[in-house]
């Protein structure tokens, strides 16, 4: 299971990779594996939207299930990955890279402290 050290994680299997005051958001390798073949992605926020930690930012659907993706932090959406809905299986192939979903400019970077680091996320998965 791939859990990059340079990301922070939510208990619901989202990741955020912070650079400066902005963070890229997606779902983890574990999440894509659990969902299995992903056939549909819809980004439900737009650039310019203000979002709160825990708000839905995308919907991901696999052959058998649908799952919402939630914002790990609050802030303003500055970019969305337009190409992802055209190639949903990217989420299976490259969950931490090409399958980023949104970029958020954080309004409260202190929220990052409420997230899991790679070791804690690994420990949480090990409990399953």
């Amino acid at each position: 299971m791939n859990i990059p050290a340079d990301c922070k994680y939510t208990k619901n299997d989202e990741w955020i990779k912070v650079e400066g005051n902005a963070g890229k958001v997606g779902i983890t390798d574990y999440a894509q594996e659990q969902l299995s073949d992903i056939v549909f992605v819809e980004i439900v926020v737009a650039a310019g939207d203000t979002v709160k930690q825990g708000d839905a930012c995308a919907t991901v659907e696999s052959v058998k299930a649908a799952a919402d993706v939630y914002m790990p932090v609050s802030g303003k959406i500055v970019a969305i990955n337009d190409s992802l809905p055209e190639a949903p299986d990217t989420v299976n192939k490259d969950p931490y890279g090409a399958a980023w979903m949104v970029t958020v400019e954080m309004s409260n970077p202190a929220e990052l402290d409420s997230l899991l680091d790679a070791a804690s996320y690994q420990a949480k998965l090990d409990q399953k």
Partner: protein
Amino acid sequence: MTEQLKRTHLYQWHVDHGGRMVPFAGWEMPVQYPTGPIQEHHTTRRVAGLFDIDHMGQVEVRGLQAETFVNHIVTYDVRQMALYEAHYALFCYPDGGTIDDLFVYKLPDPAEKGKVYYFLVINASNREKDVAWIQAHATEFDVTVRDISDETYMLAFQGPKAPELLDRITSADVQQAPRFTAVQGTILENIPILMGRTGYTGEDGYELFFPADEALKVWNKILKEGESEGVLPIGLAARDSLRFEPCMPLYGHELSADINAVEARLTFAVSFEKEFIGRDALLKTKLEGPRRVLVGFEMVDKSVPRAEYPVMHEGEQIGVVSTGMFSPTTSKYLGMAFIPRELAAIGNEIDILIRNKPVKARIVKRPFYTPVYRR
């Protein structure tokens, strides 16, 4: 109280090979293997796939009145069936509602030379209900009914390579068997095997019946023979998408006690010119025209339709989706739904309510994928 889930003889094999086990119709079955459902789907269409479907039930009907009795309880006229023929049919309630769909085989009786018996293949989820129904009606006829599901193993081997591969490892000339007929032969060390050129994928292929104790040996033999061609074991998810594309009904979705064969557009399986339980009700629906019918639709705006989602027209709910999904063969988001007949014309626009948002769809021709044996 949680119901104890049943396991097939191949349960451990599935677990050992990364099968993701889920509850289905009272059984613990693999929904997919590590290759994933999309790859399993394509493999079945392009090469061949092997399915553990031992959860399905089998019933034998014997006796002087076997033909009359079977003809009384199923929709299709079995009197027109030749020996070794197999045909799709339904069991109906007197009101026309569907108890189950099934395959009827007419076979020579190995127990008694010159005699014929009927072999019925029924759904796992309906096994107890079906057997009770058959038994209840059998009392008025000179027949014996045996549920042989436990001692009979059932696999499906489906896909363009299946005939050639099965031919190599069985005694019978399975490639010569026409569609919807069965052949009897042996596999491995004289294991008797009944092979119906039938299946629920839209591909050429077989449904196999043999003694349950031999399950692992036969399963491994077929997989080994197909290994160099790329044959894979196939889970329930791909089984569902494979039956969905040719628009084959699944009980609980396109058929139920509240859905009859005319609404589900299955009249090819109904012989109105003979007597059977439910005939009058079905004939009435047919003559008057069903109030609602099964249609196929394609999403115009991209989204995944799923079973139970409401179908809308001009802001009003007009029906529900029976099955919907991403179709791997066509790369489209497709569904089937029951809607009023007057709105069912091909090309009509409807909306599917997805997460409380109406999403545009269009009625299209069924099936979405024409079975190879009908081309």
